[in-house]
């Protein structure tokens, strides 16, 4: 895979695509049937916008059933997540690099103390 900067790709979006991407990021995830209504475009246009954002790797899309209909659920890609939620003070989640997660480990106690008293 070639590492194209995300901001470069985003700079080339049409106005509708940009609004669509913004909507997906704001909601954190939205059904395609709500997506086009929220954007105030036709369903056909809505699906074309999603198609294009998926192709550019800016959103993820998966099949789902919603209100009894087959539709898609559109979510932001992992790159947009707020990774600072792994931090407590200046300490990273102690489970990183570990195979096992022990919720009662000393390292995790320390992490929680940081969370409670340093933020």
């Amino acid at each position, binding site marked *: 895979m070639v590492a194209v900067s995300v901001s470069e790709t985003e700079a080339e979006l049409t106005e509708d695509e940009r609004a669509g991407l913004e909507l997906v990021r704001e909601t954190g995830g939205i059904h395609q049937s709500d997506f086009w209504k929220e954007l105030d475009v036709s369903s056909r246009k809505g699906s074309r916008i999603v198609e294009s954002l998926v192709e550019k790797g800016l959103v993820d899309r998966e099949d789902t059933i919603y209100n009894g209909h087959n539709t898609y659920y559109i979510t932001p890609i*992992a790159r947009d*997540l707020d990774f*600072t*939620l792994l*931090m407590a003070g200046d300490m*990273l989640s102690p*489970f*990183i*690099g570990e195979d096992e997660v022990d919720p009662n480990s000393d390292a995790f106690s320390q992490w929680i103390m940081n*969370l409670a008293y340093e933020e």
Partner: protein
Amino acid sequence: MAFEDLLEDPVIQKYLHELVGPTGMPVAAAPPDGEVTDEELAEELDLELNDVRRALFILYENDLASYRRLRDEDSGWLTYLWTFEYDNIPENLEEEMYRLHDALEDRREYERNHEFYLCEICSIRFEFGEAMDFGFECPECGSPVESMDNDRLVDAMDDRLDALEDELNIDADA
């Protein structure tokens, strides 16, 4: 160098540091474009070949590097050509957010369902049962242990769980 935008993120820097350690960090922090051999990296970064290989292997184990092997026709030696796969970093960190979320849920349950006693001198916390076994005296220094409320810990865990659920679209009631 590739993946500059990812490597600017301080959490990602910390993540890589956590994986490869300080000696491996020069390798992890400067991924070249395209393929590279361990010897080239050692030369370029002025590092011991073993340290370079160790870092590359850790990255490989975490899906952050891949290699292909080439056999030199004359010498018969194998050459490893490495590619950095840092596109996988966001997915890895997403997975870590889920693991953290689950651990926080378990730990919050434990914190809610137990009573704790603290030795303020040694800063050691005991569960009620432990404290009772020790006659409510710290086994280290002998001073009496005091009942400790953990509301602040639980509140902090509540807040972070809410934030993680919001960010990962986890339905808290599910």
